[in-house]
């Protein structure tokens, strides 16, 4: 985005040239700007006239890198696009390539993928709850959330060998099978999480200060969401029941019984509620997947060695923790993708900020931006 102030809001009073307006930079090195986002705020008094997100401080050219290496070599990049739900991105990329190459994935691998992805989604949402409460000043819930998240990371660590940037998926399956210890651990975790959610409810959701800070703050209505392509919990908090897992089921998601939670208010509180209920839904999915996990191989019997798709293009989208993550793969028939376009949810969600932030008080900025759950590397991919 440009360095010049843009008239982001259509409001005639939103005039950054107002004599009393001044510019406040929030970020890139700000204690609570997630990652290195820079918000250039044109303010009058405490009120934001024009908010201008300036991005690019963590740019790593993932899309360009994809054009310079073969399909397999891009695999480790995928979970680094969004390091907080890296598993979903990693598996999603595998699924996109599988769609292009028409590779069949064994049943067991499908189930393992679902378990891993949903655990990862819970971890991501837990982290969001923690950081959001931290953003509005509560430190302790943050650590409780990280404690729970740690359990998930331990579980995933046991099967993938890494805790954050999993290169777990392979074209056609996953790298490593799950064992009984993992399944037992997962069941234990499901129980633990069910007992923890009421605690969050008491400590955070019912807290009057939390409610006061979140209710009616940062309202994103349906129109705004539609205009900016907002997806994920932010969209569902505005009352639109759009979830890629339901609307365009991929993998084996159509086999599970889960709901798409929605709220209508579209404010920070609604986004919190949606995420908490999504954790519950994910817990349900994991429970079912663990119950139904079939025996069998985790890779095709004869895995392909060369990944050389025919000329053509395909689009594949998954529901990441932050919204719809789409990959548009263009193949020119060689081993190297001609173009990989990533549609990342945080980017679209953040782009609504100039509109949402204009006219709010600076005190709410952090809460609103925090409630989006942005991950900067994903925006700057």
């Amino acid at each position, binding site marked *: 985005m440009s360095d010049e102030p843009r008239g982001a809001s259509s409001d005639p009073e939103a005039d950054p040239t107002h004599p*009393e307006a001044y510019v406040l930079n929030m970020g890139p090195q700000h204690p609570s700007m997630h990652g290195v986002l820079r918000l250039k705020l044109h303010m009058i008094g405490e009120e934001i006239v024009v908010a201008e997100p300036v991005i690019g401080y963590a740019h790593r050219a993932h899309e360009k890198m994809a054009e310079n290496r073969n399909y397999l070599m891009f695999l480790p990049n995928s979970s680094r696009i969004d390091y907080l739900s890296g598993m979903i991105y990693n598996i999603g990329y595998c699924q996109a390539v599988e769609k292009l190459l028409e590779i069949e994935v064994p049943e067991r691998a499908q189930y393992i993928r679902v378990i891993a992805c949903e655990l990862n989604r819970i971890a991501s949402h837990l982290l969001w709850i923690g950081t959001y409460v931290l953003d509005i000043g509560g430190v302790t819930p943050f650590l409780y959330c990280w404690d729970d998240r740690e359990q998930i990371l331990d579980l995933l660590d046991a099967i993938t060998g890494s805790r954050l940037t999993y290169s777990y998926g392979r074209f056609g399956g996953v790298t490593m099978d799950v064992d009984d210890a993992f399944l037992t651990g997962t069941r234990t975790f499901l129980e633990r999480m069910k007992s923890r959610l009421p605690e969050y409810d008491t400590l955070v959701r019912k807290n009057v200060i939390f409610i006061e800070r979140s209710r009616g703050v940062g309202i994103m209505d*349906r129109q705004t969401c539609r205009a900016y392509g907002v997806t994920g919990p932010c969209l569902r908090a505005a009352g639109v029941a759009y979830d890629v897992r339901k609307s365009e089921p991929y993998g084996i998601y159509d086999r599970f019984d889960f709901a798409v939670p929605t709220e209508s208010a579209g404010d920070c509180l609604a986004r919190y509620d949606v995420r908490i209920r999504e954790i519950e839904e994910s817990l349900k999915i994991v429970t079912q997947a663990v119950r139904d996990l079939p025996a069998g191989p985790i890779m095709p019997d004869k895995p392909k060695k060369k990944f050389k798709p025919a000329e053509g293009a395909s689009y594949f989208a998954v529901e990441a923790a932050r919204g719809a993550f789409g990959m548009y793969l263009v193949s020119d028939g060689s081993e190297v993708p001609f173009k990989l376009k990533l549609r990342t949810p945080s980017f679209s969600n953040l782009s609504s900020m100039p509109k949402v932030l204009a*006219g709010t008080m600076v005190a709410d900025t952090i809460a609103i931006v925090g409630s989006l759950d942005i991950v900067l590397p994903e925006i700057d991919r």
Partner: protein
Amino acid sequence: MNGYAQLACYLVLGLVLGGVIVVLPQLLSPRSIGRTTENTYECGIDTVGSAWMRFSITYYVFALIFVAFEVDILYLFPVAVAYEPSGWRGLAEIAAFLVILSLAILYAWRKGVFVWKSHRAPQSSSGPNA
């Protein structure tokens, strides 16, 4: 020595000690100055404009109300100390005083001073939530 004079000495000695505490590390500490060491902190970006700018008027209204209020309630200190022997008349006077004081709050409340309102309609104004 008078207790109040002592208090003054405490202030002076505190000032001296504080000065020593600040000056001492100035002499002891390392000194290394780079190009941006002495920049004003604004999240790693060069500051645009001076920080000495205008702020929201709401703060200022609070300051004014505070000044008036503080005078009021500080008057109550001697009165409170002398309340015991003052009889029902004392109660009436304090009550009148406090009621008048409350009127100020009531007025400010009715005028919406304590509601920190944003000048424009907040957030998305693209239409009603369909």
